[in-house]
């Protein structure tokens, strides 16, 4: 069952800005990453999911309900961490969390307290004087404390130091393990790569690709970069029958692409060479999207040249 589903979601702000014809679906218990450059439309999409914006056309369904019409019902099931952290005009973190608990009708604060401990948050601090990281933590506690089945996070890790970011992601991963549906936007490929089941790429308001992380991790083709001590070895290697993607003669480096099963065979071949180092170039999400963007760009340019004729 799709917990979050957008159908031809379009919000046109004019001048090409906005989101166009978005089709996304997030299954129950799934963790979906949402990646794109600044201004590509991530936040707009999330606002539509929350029901804060009215689509120009298309619909967003959350647990089967249209989110614009039933905003107040669907948000009950959502824990939301906004991209821009701005708290209400209250004194301390505790005030804010208590106030949120009031809104949610939540009386049992034990889970909130465990979260606070986990995040090493001092909620007594003055909201105005909190650092970006503390604010982010407070916002996360507020979003998670009522144990909502869906969690939506808008760039939750920006501004966090690496350690904190790891702790943050740990907690999200834990929630995911509990079976919660998570939708998280980011502009950092790494963190999505390690945590998400699925990642959608949005660029200029259009979904470019939705890929399954499983496919990327278990890709059948691998790339290796090899450097030789001598020019002779380098030249000799070129004559081997491999698909070479990059040659860097000045360093005696060569990058080749082989099937996953041919890796051991490659090592056998390299025994006969004086190899300085060999390293696998992992196929990352970043590379994946870059390739797609690059090919799209080429297609567009071709189209342009055609239309120019």
């Amino acid at each position, binding site marked *: 069952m799709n917990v979050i589903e957008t159908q031809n979601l379009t919000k046109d702000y004019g001048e090409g800005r906005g989101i166009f014809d978005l089709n996304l679906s997030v299954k129950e218990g799934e963790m979906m990453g949402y990646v794109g450059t600044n201004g590509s439309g991530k936040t707009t999409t999330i606002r539509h999911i929350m029901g804060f914006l009215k689509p120009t056309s298309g619909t967003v369904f959350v647990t089967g309900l249209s989110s614009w019409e039933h905003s107040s019902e669907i948000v009950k099931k959502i824990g939301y961490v906004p991209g821009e952290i701005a708290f209400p005009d209250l004194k301390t973190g505790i005030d*804010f969390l208590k106030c949120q608990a009031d*809104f949610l009708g939540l009386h049992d604060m034990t889970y909130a307290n465990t979260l606070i401990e986990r995040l090493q948050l001092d909620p007594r601090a003055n909201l105005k004087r909190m650092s970006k990281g503390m604010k982010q933590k407070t916002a996360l506690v507020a979003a998670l404390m009522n144990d909502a089945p869906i969690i939506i996070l808008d760039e939750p890790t920006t501004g966090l130091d690496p350690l904190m970011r790891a702790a943050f992601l740990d907690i999200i991963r834990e929630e995911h393990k509990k079976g919660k549906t998570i939708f998280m936007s980011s502009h950092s490929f790494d963190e999505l790569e390690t945590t998400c089941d699925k990642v959608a790429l949005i660029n200029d308001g259009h979904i470019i690709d939705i890929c399954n992380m499983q496919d990327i991790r278990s890709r059948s083709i691998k790339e290796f970069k090899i450097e030789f001590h001598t020019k002779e070895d380098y030249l000799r290697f070129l004559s081997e029958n491999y698909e070479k993607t990059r040659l860097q003669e000045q360093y005696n480096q060569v990058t080749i692409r082989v099937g996953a099963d041919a890796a051991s065979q490659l090592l056998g071949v390299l025994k006969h060479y004086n190899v300085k180092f060999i390293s696998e170039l992992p196929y990352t999400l970043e590379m994946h999207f870059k390739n797609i963007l690059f090919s799209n760009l080429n297609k567009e340019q071709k189209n342009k040249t055609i239309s120019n004729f």
Partner: protein
Amino acid sequence: MFSKALFKQSCKANGTMWGIITAAVCFMLACVMLISGNGNIGEVKDSIEDTIIVKEVDAQMQKRALSYYADAEDGLKTFDAQFSNCASDTLSYLVWCSEMPKQTDFTDGAVYAAAMQAWQDAMPEMKTEAGQSYAAAVTQWQAAMPAQDSFSSVEDYLAAIDTWQEASPATQEQAVTAAYAAACDALQNEITQNAQAAGYKKDSLEAQEMLGSVMYTLNPNGMFNDFYTENKEEIPADYDILSLIAHISTKDIDDYLTSDERTSYRYDRAANGAAIFLSGNMLKSENVDALMDALSSYGVTAEKYDSFGYTYDSIKHMAKTVVVTYQGRLDYELELLRDQYTDGASFDETAYQNAAAKKKDDLAADIATSFLSTLPASVSDALEEIGQADLYTLIVGSIFYKLAGLLLPIIYMIMASNNLISGQVDSGSMAYVLSTSTKRSTVVFTQAVYLIGSLFAMFSLTTVTGCICLSFVPEDITLTYGNLILLNVGAFFVLLALSGLCFFTSCIFDRSKRSMAIGGGLSIFALVAAMLGLFGSPVIPSVVRLEALNYFNYTTIISLFDVISIIEGRDAFIWKYAILAALGLLGYLAGAVRFTKKDLPL
């Protein structure tokens, strides 16, 4: 519909500002009410008021002095004329009687009879009643001469003749007394007639005064010596009739009556009499009361009158001064008139008399004129207005409740309405509220309730403060508790209307800057226009009023807060309040509808 949690949050977020502003408004109100209530305002107003009143009292007294003087002078003139006529008659009869031919002077009976006949024929005609009755009295007396036959002895007869002689009216003294009495009677009749012609009843205070002013001046036979001694004045010499008699005997009485000598004698006598009569009268409470009645429109009280320190001497001095001024100017003016009506040798007597009478009235009015009427109408109106201005109500009602008392609540209202919606949308904190299944309609309703409620609470506290302060101020203040409460209600409705506007802009704009600029800007404009308009509004005394600024009153909805109608107890403010409330609620409603339907960048 209503979220308790959100209401609590709004209270926490805006509570401090609310507290500070409410305390400041209450403090300001208390200062205004207590300080201006303890009489430190309007010293200038009081002195202007006193000046006007003193001038008015002076004018009233001068008017009285002049009318006493005119009455006295007229009366003396009448008396002179009447006395001269009567005395001429009686004296001429007396002379005629003394010229009766005596039988002893005539040897020839026929000659005596002829002389007797000639004498009888020469009997002067008695033109006046006094003369006739005097003649009758003399004739009767002559007829009553004792006859020698009825007496047995010569001694008895001589004694009877002596008695008869002593009772003789045919003496100069008797003749003059008869004339004097007749002249007094005639004078009294004429004054009574004049009074009736002027519309006063015979026994009215005014008629008595007219009579008094003449009679006290004339002081016949020292009848009113008591009046003079009571006021510690010298008893004036008897009214001079001797010169009149002298001139009757020299037959130039008509010339003498109009001569400068006699006229100036009458002037002096009348001036002295009128001054003493006035100052004596003004010490009597019933006369003071009459004066107070005439000046009641200026709010003159007996205490106030006493505080001006009028004394017998000061009144007398003032009266004399004004009479002298009047007479001096009248002489000069009459001289001019005489020249004007003299055309070569001919002199138009009737035209001159008419013109002279008119000139007298004009002069009297001119000299004893009220202070206010000497000024141009607009200036006198302005001074009178300042004298009557109710400064306390002006300060509390208009200056405080329409300006100072609105400023801080408006600032609070602008900031709060902005914080409640657009501020939270702009910063994004509204997301926390809306992501907790709180409906937008609940949010907007709760925030509206908070805003209206906080304003209501603010003005409830100023009402309480105002009522407490009012109980401390002196009682002579015209501001009532009811009006004070209505003023607070009005200020609340103004804030309701303006907050409707600000709430509306707060709901439609995502940017709090824009919402603040438009809603707040328009609210401040309304207040500033009301401030400027106040300087041109009719509540400000016209001396300092700037009429041109009144146009601002047509550009601001604060004008619907009709303080004047509340103070004057009219009902016009009710429908104006209704408009304010309706505008405010409309703003809230429109804002709420818009907020539930718009995109929120959260």
